[in-house]
């Protein structure tokens, strides 16, 4: 998919460009894989530094930041699920930190055809992978909570009386199918659009003022800086929403039947 602006502005903006490699039947976007691995390495390094430095005495700023995050997630989980939700805390924390780190890669992008370090979350594969992982874990928790019979019965008995079982199945089926899709597309869409906006801003300036003019350069830099500040906020918000929705999905899955 490329060049949708070409007829209008004579500018070539394309999406879905990746450094790809074929491994057997699979096509791998190598740039996304590298970016994901780098983000993962950053998160793990930060975690292992914390592990080495963690003290029960007066914590440093680094440890304080981690403790603040863990405390916030812990409170969120305790408030919605209660003590049973303790196992979700690591997942929610990892999701937040990892997605936030990935989203920050957007800052180093320049909106070129192929960024050196693209935000891995701006490719659909990583959001989908995380969303599916979360949804699988949610269903696993639901089965553990209600038992296999209770798990399936739940689809027929809620929210209307059992007499309307087909309606219940339809509504619950739609809800469960939509969950991973919305979880994926919300994160992917925001980050993908963030990268696209950089290209569009650059293209807009180039179209109006030319690619190499002083005014064009200054305006381009200004727009980019302003947009990236906004994009960083979006990155934090999206990471927070992903982690929060994960907690809420677990909350629904682990709640007693009559509670919702």
């Amino acid at each position: 998919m490329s060049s949708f602006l070409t007829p209008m502005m004579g500018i070539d903006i394309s999406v879905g460009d990746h450094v790809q490699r074929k491994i057997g039947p699979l096509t791998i976007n190598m740039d996304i894989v590298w970016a994901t691995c780098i983000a993962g390495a950053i998160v793990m390094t930060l975690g292992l530094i914390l592990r080495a430095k963690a003290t029960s005495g007066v914590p440093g700023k680094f440890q304080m930041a981690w403790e603040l995050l863990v405390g916030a997630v812990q409170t969120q989980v305790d408030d919605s699920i209660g003590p049973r939700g303790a196992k979700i805390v690591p997942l929610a924390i990892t999701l937040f930190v990892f997605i936030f780190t990935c989203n920050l890669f957007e800052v180093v992008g320049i909106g070129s055809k192929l960024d050196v370090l693209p935000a891995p979350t701006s490719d659909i594969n990583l959001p989908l992978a995380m969303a599916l992982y979360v949804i699988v874990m949610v269903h696993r928790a639901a089965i553990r909570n209600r038992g296999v019979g209770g798990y399936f019965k739940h689809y027929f008995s809620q929210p209307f009386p059992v007499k309307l079982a087909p309606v219940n199945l339809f509504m619950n089926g739609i809800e469960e199918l939509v969950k991973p899709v919305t979880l994926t597309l919300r994160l992917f869409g925001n980050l993908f659009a963030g990268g696209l906006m950089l290209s569009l801003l650059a293209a807009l300036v180039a179209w109006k003022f030319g690619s190499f003019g002083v005014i064009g350069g200054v305006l381009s830099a200004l727009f980019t800086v302003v947009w990236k500040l906004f994009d960083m906020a979006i990155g934090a918000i999206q990471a927070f929403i992903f982690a929060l929705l994960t907690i809420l999905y677990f909350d629904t899955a682990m709640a007693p039947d009559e509670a919702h």
Partner: protein
Amino acid sequence: MPIATSNFLVPNGTFIVVLIAFIVVLGVITKYVLPVLNAALTERQEQIRGELEAADKAKADAEEADVERRAVLEQARTQAREIVSQAQTTADQIVTGATAEGQAIHDRIVASAEAEVIVARQAAVEEVTARVGEIVLAAAERVIGREIQASDHQDLISEAIAAVRAETSGAAAGAGGAR
């Protein structure tokens, strides 16, 4: 490596690789990072709880000590009041005793002095009485120019002595009343 354009909404094999990467990160954070952090947090909470308990205990001890101090102080005050009261009583007793003793001594001295005065006066009267006859006779001899025999005028002499006695006893009575 070839740069290829694909449909950005369709996942591909990248999905599997990034899923594995995410699970690895999740595993490391879950296994190696959060337990250490949670242990540190729990330990700090325990420390703070311990310190709070110690502070509570110290406060309770201080309050207990304060109550004890007040009790001791009150006891000391009571004792002091008793001691002062006893001292006052003792002082009163001593003053009363000393006053009585002083009065007794005073009375004794006065009585003794009065007795001495009476004895001295008696002696003086006796002496005057003894000599008044002679003095009267000597005075009479000088007046009339001849010797007068005491036996001839015993009546006059006795009368004079009685007069002296009456006078001295009246004077003594007057002195005793004036004192």
